[in-house]
């Protein structure tokens, strides 16, 4: 069968069997400290709305910002604010966080007030739950001159190990479809497409069945290839359109892409008036005793998740937030689950890749793998020479950091590290230039 896809990409081992088909379990601890970093999204960080000693309820807004590109934060538990202090977060640095002592009662706050759907999505604190954490209301407010004709639900779940979206589709197909219908009401001229990689036949079957009564919604099986779930690759596979170079957005080709969990959350916000307080997380890897898909309150410690899955086995050497291709390596289990956490993986030496890098041999495997059709080894070389102009001129800023090149590289070059450095340097230089011009 010739399923639509994109050119390039790689085939990492899927490893989904560890947690596949394991129904989502609820994890609601009766005590413990819940930690809420004030910046869980792309955009302006929030300011706290509570102070030490305050009692808070499940779904109570505890932090918000005036800025448009931002999203409020809600408590996932009921309890007392212990402190507002610097705490370690998933990325390993210390950010200002609200710490809440859970009283285990899960007493609920008043539901959200009804308003205009896009406003409501903002006031529910919804961001891209696949990991990028871009505020969803911003995505749903494209410029007027850019008509939207495709709303795509990203259910590719191309990252190895992760099965949370797969299981969410199996458990809540109607809710996801209703969420998509709600978004289609905002864009009456758009069609809805749910893109699912063909390694999830169960989810494809269920979603197709439940989409039958919605004439504007269709399910599109996709070829299994990483990074099929990258926004641009997904749009290419489903519509044949190519999002232009950065800084262009999907809206430039009439598309908006929403993650499965995000779509589900939109349903909860618009139909049930509930804010974002919970997250479905795949806990997996060969160093976890019994991998599971867990529904947990935001702010819960990663340690609780690992314990709920029977703790560690086989000496974990890497602990990852997200998938193994793009996830962040964590240095401790004492960090909170945030809006962007879709997976917690513990990998033993057998699976985690710890190879030392050696010299490039110009084999061209990175060039073949790059879904953005860049020349990774060339860009890597430019960054290491600190030649950021060449990096930029050869399209380095278009890199989506999917890691396909580094996965394929026989010399184990730290390619993604290079592009991150290169992009940061270019952005820094642009900022300085803008500053210098403003001074004039």
């Amino acid at each position: 069968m010739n399923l639509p896809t994109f050119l390039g990409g790689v085939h990492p081992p899927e490893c989904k069997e560890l947690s596949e088909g394991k129904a989502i379990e609820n994890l609601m601890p009766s005590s413990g400290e819940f930690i809420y970093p004030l910046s869980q999204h792309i955009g302006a960080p929030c300011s706290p709305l509570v102070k030490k000693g305050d009692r808070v309820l499940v779904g109570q807004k505890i932090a918000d910002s005036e800025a448009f590109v931002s999203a409020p934060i809600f408590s996932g538990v009921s309890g007392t604010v212990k402190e507002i202090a610097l705490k370690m977060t998933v990325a390993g640095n210390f950010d200002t966080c609200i710490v809440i002592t859970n009283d285990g009662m899960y007493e609920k706050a008043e539901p959200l007030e009804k308003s205009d759907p896009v406003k409501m999505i903002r006031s529910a604190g919804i961001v891209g739950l696949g990991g990028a954490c871009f505020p969803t209301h911003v995505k749903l407010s494209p410029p007027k001159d850019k008509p939207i004709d495709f709303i795509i639900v990203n259910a590719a779940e191309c990252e190895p190990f992760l099965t949370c979206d797969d299981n969410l589709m199996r458990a809540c197909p109607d809710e996801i479809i209703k969420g998509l219908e709600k978004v289609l009401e905002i864009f009456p001229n758009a069609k809805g497409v749910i893109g699912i990689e063909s390694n999830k036949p169960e989810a494809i079957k269920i979603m197709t069945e439940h989409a039958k009564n919605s004439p504007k919604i269709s399910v599109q099986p996709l070829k299994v290839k990483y990074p099929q779930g990258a926004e641009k690759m997904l749009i290419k596979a489903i519509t044949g359109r190519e999002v232009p170079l950065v800084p262009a957005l999907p809206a430039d080709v009439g598309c908006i892409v929403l993650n499965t969990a995000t779509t589900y959350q939109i349903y909860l916000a618009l139909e049930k008036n509930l804010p974002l307080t919970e997250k479905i997380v795949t806990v997996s890897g060969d160093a976890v005793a019994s991998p599971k898909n867990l529904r947990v309150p935001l702010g819960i410690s990663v340690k609780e998740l690992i314990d709920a899955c029977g703790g560690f086995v086989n000496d974990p050497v890497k602990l990852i937030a997200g998938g193994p291709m793009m996830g962040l390596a964590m240095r401790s289990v004492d960090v909170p689950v945030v809006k962007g956490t879709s997976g917690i993986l513990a990998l033993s030496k057998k699976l985690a890749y710890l190879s030392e890098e050696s010299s490039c041999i110009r084999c061209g495997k990175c060039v073949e793998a790059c879904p953005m059709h860049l020349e990774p080894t060339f860009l890597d070389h430019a960054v290491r020479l600190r030649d950021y102009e060449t990096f930029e001129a050869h399209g380095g800023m278009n890199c989506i950091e999917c890691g396909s090149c580094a996965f394929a590289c026989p010399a184990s070059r730290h390619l993604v590290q290079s592009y991150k450095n290169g992009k940061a340097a270019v952005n820094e230089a642009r900022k300085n230039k803008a500053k210098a011009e403003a001074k004039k």
Partner: protein
Amino acid sequence: MSDKFIVSTSPHVHSKFSTRGIMGAVLLALAPAGITSAYFIGYRSFAVMAVCVAACVLSEWVWQKYIMKTKSTISDLSAAVTGLLIAYNLPPDIPFYMAVCGCVFAIIVVKQFYGGIRCNIVNPALAARAMMLISWPTAMTTWTLQGMSGATPLAAMKAGQAVKISCWDLLVGNMGGCIGETCSVLLILGGLYLIWEEVISWRIPVIYIATAAILGQLFGHGSAVYEIFTGGLLLGAIFMATDYTTSPMTPKGQIIYAFGCGLLTALIRTWGGYPEGVSFSILIMNIAVPLIDQYTAPKIFGAVKKGGK
């Protein structure tokens, strides 16, 4: 519970490929052809192979350990591949000191002077062969087969003699030639193995061989079958032209490069001063690789097609 984890940038998993694995696959693909030629030629071809591999590995090790004082890279097996390829390109009766000179030249002058693996601008094994051909023309073109000395089929064709070799001898390599270039069947099998293992792509060998064979016939040099199965075309197209460092990285570039190799080979074989043109063709196209790479850069996803570059 252990609380010490390794922190690094994504990705956290890796494909099966490693430099050493790739070089190992090349050695494995080369081995059968060498063993067969030893069967036809005798123990001396084994001795040449051993001397060349040892000389290459040793010169790389000495250079890195005592002169550059860096970490040795002999464990990536690339020096061993170079050594074996040099041996395959030599006549079996070559004096050992000449073989050693060629190996030292390949590793130190061609490879390490430029900065080691990835940095050399031409294929070290072929550059060594070209150097030896110029330095010791007689020793490099004297062939003995089963006690009889004689010309290679290509040299005979150049001299205007009629060449008659049975199909079977052409395929298994029972004819005059360098150590590793004669056993066509096993060279092709080795190439298929490398394509299957995704070590090389089909583009360079197939296009190179097809171009050289068709143009050779068109130019009136000889029949396409002879073009393919005599001389060093198979060895060159499958194992030398596909050297990563000195071939283009993009598919389009590989096609241009392979066509260029084929064209030059046919030109040299038909009108050049030497009977065989594979080494020189590849060396010349090696030098063109940076230019080819520059002009065949892939179109970035989402970019609008520009004219020219």
